[in-house]
């Protein structure tokens, strides 16, 4: 499994637990030549600012 620490604030594409590409935003990662349609694509890092209620 790839350690995602180096990708904080970026989008990554992951295949079988390994990062195959990263980009600044979703469009960039989706259009990356190394990314297949079946790869998992998601951003890494703190959620957007604001507050979220997850209750005790």
């Amino acid at each position: 499994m790839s350690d995602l620490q180096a990708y904080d604030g970026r989008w990554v594409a992951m295949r079988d637990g390994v990062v195959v590409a990263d980009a600044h935003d979703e469009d960039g990662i989706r259009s990356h030549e190394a990314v297949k349609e079946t790869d998992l694509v998601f951003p890494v890092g703190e959620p957007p600012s604001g507050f979220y209620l997850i209750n005790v």
Partner: protein
Amino acid sequence: VANKKVDVAIVGVGWVGGILAAELTKAGLTVVGLERGHDRSTVDWQDDHDELRYAIRMELFQNTANETWTFRHNLAETALPIRQLGAWLPGTGIGGAGVHWNGQTWRFHPRDFTIKSSTIDRYGASAIPANMAIQDWGITYDELEPYYDKFEYMAGIAGKAGNLKGQKVDGGNVFEGPRSREFPVAPPEDTPLMALFRRATKNLGYHPFTGPTANLPAPYKNPDGIDRGPCTYCGFCERFGCEVGAKADPTVTVLPVAHKTGRFKIINYANAFAIKNDGKNAQSILYYDSMGRVQEQPADVIVLGAFVFNNVRLLLNSKLGAPYDPTTGNGVVGRNYAYQTGGGGASGWFEHEEFKRYMGAGALSAAMDDLNADNFDHTGLGFLGGGSVSVGQGGARPIQSLSVPPGTPAFGSAWKAAVQHYYRRVVSVGFQGESPAYKQHFMDLDPHYRDKFGNPLLRITFDWQPNERAMVAYAGKKTLPIMQEMIPNGQVASGGPLSPTAPGIITGGPGSLPAHFDTTAYQSTHNTGGAIMGADPSTSVVNSYLQMWDASNVFVVGACNFPQNAGFNPTGTVGALAYRAAEGIIKYHKQGGSLV
């Protein structure tokens, strides 16, 4: 010298201990409850709107100077002790977490109990990631339904059914499993904020409803004859005891019933550290009393009804059940640790609308379930699971509820002006996601660190996984349009300059999780697993009555029984399991042996 032997001895006097004490003593059994904290009741909360004392300094929670946990993200790391409470807040004292909860009282979906077989049926076995360890519960929703019903009628849960005996009912949660009857209490009225969420989500084609709540909107007398009055909407639920007893908690519902029988005794300041056993049956609970002396409580039946971590640690320290080994997959105690996945929400700062945010109740909310569980088609999405989406009006306490839009200075007069301006104008649409089990997520005994009594701490191994990252990214894309519907023409903050004429500012979009799980920031106290239930002794600790496969007179009950966690708050299911266990213990006490 051992205490007098009783029929049943219980570790922990929270919801599980309280429900069992009431049900078992009503059935004529003698019961002792061992509680590490002290006694308390509604009178203790008469003047408790002290946010610094309860919410910041965390008076009602476990003291990590006495006992804590070690944590690591994976097997290669060395686990370190958690020195201050952060990500989760386990309670201590009579009533346990049932005193400081918010009162959100859900039933899990029928699919949640058969998650593995249902997933394979719909998407095929290949849809489940190789390291994911989801498994069926060994009990179905239909089998658990009568116990959900018991818990809800005891606690006086308010809501509107969305599925009565298989008939879908508009206005309730149409995705829920069939209920045998309506909620015992009608739902609270919509606040303007809840009504706004309801309109917005309906416009987008979703199915909103009032979140089921244990904060009574009206007086209620339960089947045990317990009378409680309604909520005053003071807004001090989460992290606080209820000053009027309107929030269902064990001290105002089940414990008075147990005490009334004359067959229930509580021993306070009792820190259970081991279950004396011969490998087949247990004889007694060993505990430290308030002076630190070892004491012994013998009983015919031993119940572990403490928080997830304490139940699992007690089993491991007592050498009851085979410890889970993540390298071989063998063993059961400690396996399938899971949590609750946050992120994926959206926030809005309104310019032209105000909400009375200072009023509220912990579970006063409008919700939708369209994005939870398998309520939507996951084909091609690349992940499994979902979560509940809601807008809550829990009360906006003066310290922890301040929020200003992105770009606001972090201090000074501009910050103060923004705090004042937005206090009544900020709203959040939250997402509470599932947490599947994984082979590498588990609990065991730490080889290095010990508590103040010299016993090994519990070690937790956990991190966010790609499935949940993709789920949260997806959720954020769905909650953003809801907030945009709530603030038409609101400006989505994207790092650029904000328009002074926009009717509101919005943040949201694809949700994300940190590179690694962060133990320091509060997220949820919905820790689960470690003593999971199931139909197979090789993959579960307890059977469907929460009776240990390896020791028939030991019952382990709580969220530790969840094989993985659903996209809901856990207390409704914990309560249902406690009622199921009570029935099993009464049966066992008469006939002995395995109940299945």
